[in-house]
């Protein structure tokens, strides 16, 4: 008889794809998101039923990493399809009142109503600046259809993307106008949101997708690891640096219920959810945030303040000062190496000489660190983007106690989000529509996404930094500044003042990505909450 607990095994065929890991990382660097409005429930359900057989699940495809795929192999598609719904979408589709009544307040409100909490009521974050399709006076989006596609050697999306788009539009057209495509996206095509990784020419003449965003940082490095997300030992390996940490530096995967509904969470309970339980189970909420990046402003400000940093810290090479300033703001060097492990440019080079960039060892190393040894932020400023987004053990009130008495990441474990999505737009294009569509997945938008956005991105009290907001993505009201602690006693701290707005909201909403079971119930109109 074994007393070891049974490991969480998610039924991958019941989860929608794109949640456990990002499509961009799985070889799908292009995407297209379409929004639909449903006028009649039956037509809406027919639309869902038409798309349901095409929905991509979380089942593992054959991969070069040798991860087992199960008895029946699912071929890797050229284009994936996923569905998500707003609260009013579920209402329009005829989901019963008792089920709807179990939905969380913030999901019922939708993102626009939460503007004061999210900082979307100030500066140029306000809905007046959003893409028309997201503006709160317009018809509400009900159904989000997400297509992710592979690319050819020239970096173009495979034809399957257009074919899948045509299939979706045909299914909507079959409802005689009862399911309507909502138009009004900024960008190349107002009918939908086009997304694409940033591409660069490879030496062999092909175009390859880069893992970077428009400010030049390698993105999506830190991502929570939770029970059931990866097979077996893979999960334990990845949990190091990405899961939850006890006071002694031991890592474990986070509880599944922090991201997937119907599973025990970090409070060691299965949180209440909309009934019946199999409607909510294996589903996930996410915040869709279209975030514009003011790249010219960013370049100018960084160049200007780097001069001040170079003068203050006596750095001869201005380019090095610029890289250092960016790294201090983000918490990582643009290539992803964290300041905690490589606080100077020389350290960064030594780090990359020791471990080959991109190798499994390097990837494991760049997430394996904690903050207790850098409490005052001498290496990595306490208000840098990375320390705010995932505070690890930084908020441990007993950080100065013996290891046995510490609390590790306890204050962080209930505030994690899975970051999905892709960049959009071309920073050189004249339409000035470029940034990132962030899909922030979690089990509780209020406790996880909204808390991180309000308290950690747009405020500084938890870091003893008063009103200072995140230097990269925070709301930069008049007087916004970024304080960089002195690296050692020989240098003064540097205050980078006059932060302009670098990242602004351009639209979005809160969505529910149901399981395949729930999708069937919604499509067939058989949700039974009794």
């Amino acid at each position: 008889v074994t007393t070891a607990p049974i490991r969480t095994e998610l039924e991958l065929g019941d989860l929608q794809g794109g949640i456990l890991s990002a499509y961009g990382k799985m070889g799908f660097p292009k995407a297209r998101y379409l929004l639909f409005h449903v006028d009649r429930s039956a037509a809406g359900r027919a639309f869902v039923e038409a798309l349901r057989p095409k929905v991509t699940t979380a089942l593992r495809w054959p991969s070069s990493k040798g991860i087992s795929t199960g008895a029946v192999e699912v071929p890797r598609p050229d284009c994936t399809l996923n569905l998500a719904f707003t609260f009013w979408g579920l209402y329009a589709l005829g989901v019963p009142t008792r089920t709807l009544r179990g939905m969380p307040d913030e999901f019922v409100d939708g993102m626009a109503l939460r503007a004061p909490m999210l900082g979307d009521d100030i500066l140029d974050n306000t809905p007046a600046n959003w893409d028309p399709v997201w503006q709160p006076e317009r018809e509400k989006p009900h159904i989000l259809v997400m297509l992710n596609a592979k690319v050819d050697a020239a970096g173009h999306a495979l034809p399957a993307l257009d074919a899948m788009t045509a299939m979706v539009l045909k299914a909507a057209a079959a409802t005689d106008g009862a399911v309507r495509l909502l138009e009004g996206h900024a960008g190349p095509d107002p009918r939908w949101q086009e997304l694409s990784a940033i591409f660069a020419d490879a030496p062999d003449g092909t175009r390859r997708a880069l893992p970077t965003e428009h400010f030049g940082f390698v993105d999506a490095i830190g991502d929570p690891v939770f029970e059931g997300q990866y097979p077996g030992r893979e999960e334990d390996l990845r949990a190091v640096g990405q899961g939850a940490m006890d006071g002694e530096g031991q890592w474990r995967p986070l509880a599944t219920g922090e991201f997937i509904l119907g599973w025990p969470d970090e409070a060691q309970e299965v949180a209440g959810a909309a009934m019946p339980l199999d409607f909510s189970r294996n589903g996930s909420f996410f915040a869709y945030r279209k975030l514009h990046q003011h790249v010219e402003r960013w370049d100018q400000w960084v160049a200007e303040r780097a001069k001040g940093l170079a003068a203050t810290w006596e750095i001869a090479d201005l380019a090095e000062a610029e890289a250092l300033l960016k790294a201090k703001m983000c918490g990582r060097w643009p290539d992803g190496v964290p300041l905690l492990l490589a606080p100077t440019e020389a350290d960064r080079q030594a780090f990359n000489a020791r471990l080959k960039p991109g190798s499994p060892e390097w990837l494991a190393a760049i997430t394996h660190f904690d903050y207790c040894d850098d409490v005052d932020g001498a290496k990595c400023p306490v208000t840098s983007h990375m320390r705010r987004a995932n505070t690890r053990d930084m908020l441990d009130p007993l950080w100065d106690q013996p290891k046995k008495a510490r609390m590790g990441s306890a204050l962080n474990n209930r505030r994690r989000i899975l970051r999905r999505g892709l960049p959009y737009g071309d920073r050189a294009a004249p339409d000035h529509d470029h940034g990132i569509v962030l899909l922030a997945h979690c089990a509780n938008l209020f406790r996880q996404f909204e808390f991180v956005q309000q308290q950690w991105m747009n405020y500084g009290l938890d870091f003893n930094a008063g009103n200072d907001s995140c230097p990269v993505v925070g709301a930069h009201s008049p007087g916004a500044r970024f304080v960089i602690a002195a690296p050692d006693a020989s240098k003064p701290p540097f205050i980078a003042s006059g932060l302009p707005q670098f990242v602004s909201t351009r639209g979005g909403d809160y969505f529910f990505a149901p399981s395949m079971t729930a999708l069937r119930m919604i499509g067939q109109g058989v949700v039974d909450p009794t």
Partner: protein
Amino acid sequence: MPNIDGGHIFFTLLAPVKLGEVAHPDGRVTTHSHLLREELANLPTAAQSPVAIDTNLQSPFARCTRTHFLRLFVLDQPMFNGRDPSNPLVNAVKGVNPLVHQPFDVLSRPWLVMSADVDRRPAEPDQGLASWAEGLWTRTEAEMRAIFGHCHGFDGVGSAAAFAAYLKRCQVETTMSFNDYWPGRPPLKGESFGRIGAGLLAVAAGVMALMWAVLKPASMWWLLPLLLVGLAAGAAAVVWNLWSRGRRPFPPAPDSDLPSVLKSLHVQQRFAFFAETVQGFDPQALHRAFGEFLAGVRPGDLESPTQMPGVIRSDGVALVEHKAVDPKRVVL
């Protein structure tokens, strides 16, 4: 217990709201609790949210420089949590009939609750409660009359001293105090089981020795009863020691009175700008600038310049404009 804690008075008041009908200024006949709630709802809050700032009205309590926090609300009834839990087997033995309703108490009327966190004055006999109440009356008499006028026993209160006496009469013990002015961990010394045990044994041994010396017993058999008496005395001493230590107020955080807190907020904000401005200054220029900073901000002067009570910043930076978002609520 913690009416006084951490250098502050934690004041809790329960004032009975008048019963009976009363004429609303608009002509309706209504209740005192209705009028009182309306009065409280119309009381401006401090300028700490976009809505409050836009009204250009300030909380009356921002006129008081000893009041950190003040809250007023009407309590109708305590929550009835259902029957007291009991063991069905015990009930069966005792013959309790679960069909017979358990009696439970209700409040006779709505009560006005006031809770406030106030700077203490150790030199005054009541730690400064009366002087605070008198100051509150002096600065907010109109509001206090409008609010407490709906409370039983307030009629006839017409002076600061009478108001202070009324508040004192309605004061109840604060059972949970809270303040957050300790920047680090307060210097509290905990007890360990070892120390408690050692103390118990020391008292027990002392008591035994004393009794042996006084009684001079003839037989060693007396040792056991004397040991028991000694241990009982030791245990009593331990309980008394822990109890009296537990009752001791939490130590006041340094400079946690309201004028000091406001001044430190002001200095902090100004200093942040100063530090930003003087980056790159040579030592002489920095020295001169710091002299000017000290002369301008006067860190030791609690009177001025300082942050006014009831606002969220005093660094001269314009507050960001908040735009109300008013989405379409008809959705389909």
